[in-house]
């Protein structure tokens, strides 16, 4: 029982990380039909810069980590917005070219990060509490999972509030449903594209700093490896659906944890099988309605 609880909560913690990456991917695809393969680079860069600033503020301190998370948010948002303005906008409605340019950015940026920070991951120092565990009904839960779950939950609530309560959120929700019609109403939907990219980038940026907390290190390939799972989550949840991404994140991570523990480290295989099963039974994903 305690093992199940441990696997469950650590799974949700990993799912939180997936969600931070997948939420942006799903919104961007939903609104613009762009599969953003550069999303992992936003995460990696934010992770590195968050760490660089954070350790100067206070290496291994809470202040350093919180400043790092803030830097991650800002860096993620800025880099994503610039990517949209410079690369994506120029290729408006040309989806193959958009995919190619984001793939290119993803590959080139990893090489750049390796050039700056080296090919090996760098071990980082964290506040002591995060390295300890909390007893929940006999299960010793690593404390860093609480930080991941709390942050992702906060991001989810903020994005939902933004989508449901702001004027821009209304434009984005309508745009996910039918982009052409929003334009016909006389709304410049391209401005919403930049906003969605910035929001997705901010979430991924925060995810970058939290990924370094989860793995205890920062590295040039962190974004790339998380991006694969995030894409799987996005497809399972349904492209364009935020709630789908949230549910699928937790589902995928929990399945992964359990398969790794009980089925001899077959977590990744289980995730791919889950993806295949969902695609066969519900090709639009759990909550997806978007068909571009």
């Amino acid at each position, binding site marked *: 029982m305690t093992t199940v609880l441990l696997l469950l909560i650590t799974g949700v913690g990993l799912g939180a990380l997936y969600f931070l990456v997948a939420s942006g991917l799903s919104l961007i695809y939903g609104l613009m039909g762009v599969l953003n393969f550069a999303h992992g680079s936003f995460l990696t860069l934010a992770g590195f810069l968050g760490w660089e600033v954070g350790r100067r503020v206070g290496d291994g301190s809470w202040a350093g980590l919180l400043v790092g998370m803030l830097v991650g948010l800002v860096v993620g948002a800025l880099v994503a917005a610039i990517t949209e303005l410079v690369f994506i906008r120029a290729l408006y409605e040309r989806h193959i070219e958009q995919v190619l340019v984001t793939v290119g950015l993803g590959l080139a940026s990893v090489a750049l990060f390796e050039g700056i920070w080296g090919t090996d991951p760098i071990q980082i120092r964290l506040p002591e509490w995060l390295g300890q565990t909390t007893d929940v009904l006999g299960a010793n839960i690593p404390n860093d999972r609480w930080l991941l779950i709390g942050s992702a939950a906060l991001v989810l609530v903020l994005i939902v509030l933004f989508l449901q309560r*702001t004027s821009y959120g209304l434009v984005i929700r309508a745009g996910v*449903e039918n982009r052409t019609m929003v334009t*016909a109403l006389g709304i410049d939907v391209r401005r919403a594209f930049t906003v969605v990219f910035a929001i997705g980038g901010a979430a991924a940026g925060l995810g970058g700093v939290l990924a370094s907390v989860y793995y205890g290190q920062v590295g040039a390939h962190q974004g790339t490896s998380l991006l694969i799972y995030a894409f799987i989550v996005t497809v399972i949840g349904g492209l364009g659906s935020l709630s789908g991404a949230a549910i699928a994140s937790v589902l995928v991570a929990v399945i992964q944890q359990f398969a790794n523990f009980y089925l001899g480290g077959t977590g990744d295989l289980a995730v791919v099988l889950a993806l295949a099963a969902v695609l066969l039974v519900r090709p639009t994903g759990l909550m997806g309605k978007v068909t571009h």
Partner: protein
Amino acid sequence: MTGDRPALELDAVGLQIGGARILRDVTMRVATGEMVGVIGPNGAGKTTLFNVISGVAVPTSGRVLLAGDDVTGQRVHQRARAGLGRTFQTSSVFAGLTAGENVRLAAQAWLGGATSPWRFPRTDDEASGVARRCLEEVGLDHHLGTSAGVLSHGDKRKLEIAMLIATEPQVVLLDEPMAGVGSGDVAGLVDVIRRLHRSGRTVLMVEHHMEVLLGLVDRVAVMHHGELLAIGTPKAIMADPAVQKAYLGESV
């Protein structure tokens, strides 16, 4: 409003695509506050006429004037700004949003509220007020919080008209508003269109439902093979032998 200048003027408008002449020398003047029905067999050029007026299609000859201003070279959103609104043959509401949000979106587009990302819509702000007023005008105020996807087809059409009103058009083009509407919804929709007209707006309407059309409009324009065959009061048009031969005689 604009006094003696017609709300809408078509001056020898022609549209040629390849070798096909879709519209030929259509000349028409619609006075401010007038309601004109456009009829004609399928393929007569009715929707193309609407496309040319709204800017979806660019005429190869002739001019389109709104309240005396030449808008021939203007694009769709510019003409919308100049006071032209239209609905489409197929229903075009956002099914995932509530009725109130649909109209609010249109009002936002018109008021420019969509450009300030951090402003939270409040129930008492201008766009929400416009949304409520427009829903009231088409009799859908009780559906403010209802998801647009579950509305009846007739109510969806009313919702489109509410979205149209929110952009404060002077000239309104309705493309087959009765298409696909259940018989129980027709009376309510007719009422909405009548009120739309009585509030001083100029209305052009393509409609196959002749009974409805003849009871609503001041004049009827008959299109045939891309030409304006005749335009006049419903009575005069029904009595016109050329019209009977070209259109009514064939399809009724």
